[in-house]
């Protein structure tokens, strides 16, 4: 049994730099705000209709703990009858929340569900509470580099010498420029939910735009940045995503339910796949994940008209593009920029990719298929293939 699953809508809070914009704001308040914003935008869905709420966080303690899925559901004011659960697949948390809810809809257990993610890296620095089993290194299950994401990115540069620091910087610059352009056109703001912020020193405020973008970035400025992961390395703060705070959330439904209720249909889920690679080069994960998903869908890379790939590191995007023979500046790839510019609050990014792709579908009715894909720590990749509901044959 399988039914068509659609993306009804997706939104997010503006992203902040860790320890800055949301320094005095709780992670659970961020996801609650995103959820309330989403439901307010979709008044045709009765809260009692929601079959489940899956919320991801890479660190599940403190304000991201207590089963953040259920906790956020209660704090958002949804009825007690709506359940919730938590998801963890590190950076692909929200992506996995979407595939998990989608799977439940496809097999007929659910009609509509909420999938999202939150990460407050200011409150939960990367690696917080991590206690790797000593066997990892003793038995060489992974190499030391596998446990620090910056090192895995350097390892990817080692593996693909054609991806130089200059190419990575150039890609990063492009991401900043595309984001600045999209902001100027008002594209990104469409899916941002204004979010209250507070700090004891600054009082209350409202975040309405992403804090991380650096619109004035130049190649010279990028070239001058330190390579913190190794001497004479290639990975810098400029060609990688930062440490960020933010929340994202999406509404998924069976296509029948969406049509019956007259809901918007922003994308149709075709299939998805996750795949593993050596943990030392986790950034390569999107390649096998995408190959696997394409194969399942019976599609080839040339069928994909839009790519939303998470920019944890520029090198990881470039490795993907090189593999599939796509140019570094191909306009189909991250047309509104990516995580290098707007930020990557770990477990929340998957839904951000989906909402960007949905906007891309709206603007490009000539495109039939798009993908959202991302790399995942400890050596994985995840890819969802989506179909454009606005697709008009031959209108290219």
């Amino acid at each position, binding site marked *: 049994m399988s039914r068509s699953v659609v993306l009804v809508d997706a939104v997010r809070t503006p992203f902040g730099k860790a320890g800055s914009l949301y320094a005095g704001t709780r992670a659970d308040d961020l996801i609650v705000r995103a959820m309330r914003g989403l439901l307010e935008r979709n008044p045709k869905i009765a809260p009692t209709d929601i079959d489940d709420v899956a919320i991801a966080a890479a660190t599940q303690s403190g304000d991201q703990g207590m089963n953040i899925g259920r906790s956020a559901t209660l704090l958002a004011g949804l009825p007690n009858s709506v359940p919730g659960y938590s998801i963890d697949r590190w950076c692909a948390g929200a992506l996995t929340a979407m595939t998990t809810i989608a799977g439940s809809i496809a097999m007929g257990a659910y009609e509509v569900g909420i999938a999202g993610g939150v990460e407050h890296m200011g409150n939960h620095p990367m690696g917080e509470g991590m206690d790797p089993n000593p066997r990892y290194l003793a038995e060489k299950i992974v190499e030391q580099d596998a446990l620090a994401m910056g090192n895995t990115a350097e390892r990817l540069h080692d593996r693909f010498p054609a991806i130089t620091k200059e190419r990575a910087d150039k890609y990063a610059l492009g991401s900043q420029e595309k984001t600045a352009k999209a902001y100027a056109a008002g594209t990104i*703001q469409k899916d941002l939910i204004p979010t209250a912020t507070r700090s004891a020193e600054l009082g209350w405020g*409202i975040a*309405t735009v992403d804090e991380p973008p650096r619109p004035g970035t130049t190649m010279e400025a990028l070239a001058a940045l330190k390579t913190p992961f190794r001497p004479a390395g290639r990975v810098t703060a400029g060609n990688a995503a930062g440490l960020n705070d933010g929340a994202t959330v999406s509404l998924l439904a069976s296509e029948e339910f969406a049509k019956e209720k007259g809901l918007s249909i922003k994308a149709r889920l075709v299939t998805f796949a996750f795949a593993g690679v050596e943990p030392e080069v986790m950034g390569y994960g999107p390649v096998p994940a995408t190959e696997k998903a394409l194969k399942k869908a019976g599609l080839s890379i040339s069928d994909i008209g839009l790519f939303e790939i998470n920019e944890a590191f520029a090198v990881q995007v470039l490795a993907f593009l090189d593999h599939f023979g796509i140019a570094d500046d191909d306009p189909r790839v991250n047309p509104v920029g990516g995580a290098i510019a707007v930020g990557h609050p770990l477990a929340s990014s998957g839904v951000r990719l989906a909402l960007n792709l949905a906007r891309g579908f709206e603007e490009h009715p000539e495109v039939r298929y798009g993908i959202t894909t991302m790399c995942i720590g400890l050596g994985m990749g995840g890819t969802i293939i989506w179909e454009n509901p606005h697709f008009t044959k031959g209108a290219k």
Partner: protein
Amino acid sequence: MTTPADLTLPEGAPEEVITHAILRPVDLTPFGFKGTLALITMDNGLDHTRPNTFGAQSLAALNEAITAAVATAPAAIAITGKPFIFAAGADLSALAFLNKREQSLAIGKFGHDVFRRLGEIEIPTFAFINGLALGGGLEVGLHCNYRTLASTAFTGLPEVFLGLVPGWGGATLLPKLIGPEKAVQVIMLNALNNNTMMKAKDALSLGVVDAVYEPADFLEKSVQFAASVLSGSTKIERKDFSNDPAWDSAIATGRAAALKKYGGAEIAAPTRALELIAAAKTATRSSGFDAEDQALADLTMSDPLRASLYAFNLIQKKRKKVEGAPKPALGRHVAKVGVVGAGLMASQLALLFVRNLKCPVVMTDIDQARADKGVAWVRAELAKLVEKRRMSQESADRLSALISGSADQSVFAGCDFVIEAIFEELSLKQELFKKLETIISPECVLATNTSSLSVEAMSEGLKNPERVVGFHFFNPVAIMPLLEVARTTKTDDATTATAVNVGKEDHGHHKRCSGIRR
């Protein structure tokens, strides 16, 4: 304008806890209006247990923030509070120390001078009342052009209850805003009705606020409201009540309520408040505010206010931290309570214990029928609470099951706290305590509800006199917010601390305070 330099702290008053006013711009573009909102956050830097209050320096801070906001030429100015608290009004701890009329007049005037700017500057102003707003806290909001309120926030003007008037604009502005009848309701009837606060839905239906939003995204919704008012898509109509026929009858209603409350005595605060409300029919803002200043200055110099502030302080502050009591941590855990007697006083005590401690409470009397009557009374009271929707059926069932009665005092075995409420006859009580010592453990507290007999004498000849303590409630227990804990020369700290802990309530409507009497 008066400056804070003229407003030195009255002698003996505690240092002012300053409510800071922090200015931050909010871009309204995403909310559909091209412009900036100057948002002022009031925050004293402490948590919600110490609400924002206004003393001279806090008023000066707000004044500066308004000036700074105006200088940015914003589309609107809004004020809001810290989490859970908007503002709880004037700093009452300093008020009691005011001993010069001109000093009192000056602080009243300074409050007006600052607050009225929010109602008189050309820029539209908003109060985003995110939490508790009482007295001057609500009044600063009334000066603004528009108000939003969090759905869980309580608001009110308790001044008349305290022996004051809403003298920072409330007595003049509220009648003009919502009309004489509703203003009398808020300023007089609510205050006189044991300081009843308004729930958000009441404040909205009375017209005190323009919109109510849930706390989860209160600020975002309030900013959205401001943007929609500025863009004209939301229109808030204000009624002119100057020709309303209800002024005289509303004032008469207020006067009747005050006379009834005070047994026919003419009390200054309600009288002055009614005069101000009546004057609001025709008064300009300036003449109204001047009259408020005079009323406030007169009242703060009066003995009734000082007595009232003393009582307020006692109930509000000292019940949390009881003067002279040993550290609460020294108290023992109480998991079973005995009440000797099942008459009305004893039954009231049993009800209080079962509600506060939620542990088994056993009552005894000379025969089973009397004991049963006491138990039945407690259960009936619990049922009444359910009827009044002040308790859930589930909680009442739980508590009812914890109450039992017997004619046999052996049921006190295992009690941690036994209180007697039998005849006021020393020899009877001495005899009782001696008998109880054969049943209870050496640590069990033996308390007496006596009002006049010597607790010391009651403990004489006991094996463990250190566990005897006076625990005197005033009748009726549910209404009188006072408890006297009396220790003897032998009572130990653990016993006293246990008694004080047991007397502290966890229900908002029970207000008790303990003093130590040796």
